[in-house]
């Protein structure tokens, strides 16, 4: 499976991209020292442009977009919100030869109900729409709680959920939310359509299961079970920063208030979003009270081996996994009990 994404991006450069202070200087320092062309030697054009040249196509239809991608493969990138791709292009960390702009395809934008409580989110659906959707608030509260944590209002006005997932930044909140939501990603190419479970979609940092000719066209979110509760909690230095650590939790209770299903996932603990499987397994068959949440948090801490980064050491990230797991479980359990008609 050919990776779709930025090849040879080291964690240092990835952290440099996310550093909120002295970013430009840091990243340029890394770049001139390393594998990429030095920025300072560019000839002065009459008007300065920073991305490398590319051929631009405004897609006229989905078929047209897929045909272009099939012809250019990894040399072409889709342009949706551009909130991750264009910064990378401005730094010249990404230099696609071809850009296929899918913004002219409104049919890709939309939130559709699928069955009772399930939903289908189109590729061009922006965070702004998800934030304002009563449907999402009601049927996908985990997503609704996570989206306001993504970057800033200006980014949310343009950025798309699909673009975020295809970009597969390990520090992003939404891949972890997709794991906990049991999302299924619909992917299309000239060869047809396939559906990829979220747990199989994220391969490595900035690397997904998308083949060179494929576009992520929609995200299926199954309905949450009855008597379930969700929570998403993150810690970041400032509002909108990438999470130092974030945990998504979904708990499903039976009629007696005992947990029958637990889903836990965290972001930024490794190159892909990580399920906290041992912690989740320990909750099944138990009442999720404060003690059970604390025990699960302990297990979660043992399951992760985060790399640490510019903003949080490995030890701190591990500590946060424990704290946020416990808090998310307590919140999710309370909501699940409320959704069961019991006192939270």
């Amino acid at each position, binding site marked *: 499976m050919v990776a779709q994404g930025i090849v040879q991006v080291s964690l240092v450069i990835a952290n440099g*991209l996310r550093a*909120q202070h002295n*970013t*430009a200087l840091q990243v340029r320092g890394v770049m001139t020292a390393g594998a990429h062309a030095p920025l300072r030697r560019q000839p002065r054009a009459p*008007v*300065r*442009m*920073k*991305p*490398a*040249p*590319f*051929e*631009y196509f*405004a897609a006229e239809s989905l078929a047209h977009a897929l045909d272009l991608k099939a012809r250019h493969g990894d040399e072409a990138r889709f*342009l949706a919100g*551009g*909130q991750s791709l*264009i*910064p990378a*292009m*401005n*730094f010249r960390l990404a230099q696609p030869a071809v*850009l296929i*702009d899918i*913004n002219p395809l409104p049919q890709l934008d939309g939130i559709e109900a699928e069955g009772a409580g399930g939903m289908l989110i189109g590729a061009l659906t922006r965070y*702004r729409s998800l934030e304002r959707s009563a449907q999402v608030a009601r049927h996908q509260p985990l997503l609704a709680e996570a989206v306001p944590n993504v*970057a*800033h*209002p*200006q*980014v949310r*006005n*343009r950025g798309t959920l699909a673009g975020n997932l295809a970009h597969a930044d390990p520090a992003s909140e939404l891949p972890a939310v997709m794991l906990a939501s049991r999302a299924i990603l619909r992917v299309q190419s000239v060869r047809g359509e396939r559906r990829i479970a979220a747990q199989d979609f994220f391969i490595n940092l900035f690397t997904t299961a998308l083949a060179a000719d494929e576009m992520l066209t929609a995200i299926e979110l199954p309905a949450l079970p009855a008597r379930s509760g969700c929570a998403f909690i993150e810690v970041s230095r*400032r*509002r*909108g920063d990438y999470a130092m650590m974030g945990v998504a939790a979904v708990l499903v209770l039976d009629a007696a208030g005992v947990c029958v299903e637990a889903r836990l996932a965290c972001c930024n603990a490794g190159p892909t979003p990580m399920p906290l499987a041992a912690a989740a397994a320990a909750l099944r068959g138990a009442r999720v009270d404060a003690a059970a949440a604390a025990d699960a948090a302990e297990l979660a801490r043992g399951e992760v081996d985060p790399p640490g980064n510019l903003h949080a050491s490995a030890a701190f990230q591990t500590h946060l996994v424990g704290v946020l797991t416990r808090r998310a479980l307590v919140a999710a359990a309370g909501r699940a009990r409320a959704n069961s008609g019991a006192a939270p």
Partner: protein
Amino acid sequence: MKTINLVVNGKSYTREVEPRMLLSDCLRHALGLTGTHVGCEHGVCGACTILFDGQAVRACLMFASQAQGHVLRTVEGLASGAGQLDGLQQAFRDTHALQCGFCTPGILMTMTEFLAEHPAPTEAQVREALSGNLCRCTGYQKIVEAVMLAASRSRHAATGAA
């Protein structure tokens, strides 16, 4: 190179641009609208914020050719005429909400959208909405005051209250 037509502040401009020209650079260099500032060029500082179909977006994260067919508004388009200030700009002046002024255009555009959607915001909401614009001079306190003042003045003007 391709020829694009941009509508900015109600005026139509036709220019030849390379596909890779950023909207921020196009506004500043090809259109001469230098009110939009460039701070980081990777989408974190907000100095380049403009209104795109009424929504605050980072002009450094859009290509000029993407803006064809859309309605753009920059800081130059806020006041109704030369030497004038709109309500928000006046409030910034009155509360001393700018020092060097570099971040100010971006903040004005962000807050223009915000106030249109939230005519009676809380201070917490204002701070949340400001999170995508960085200011190195003011510490944000006066900026928040300016936005609250502008909102309050707008509400009083609308209701005719004193």
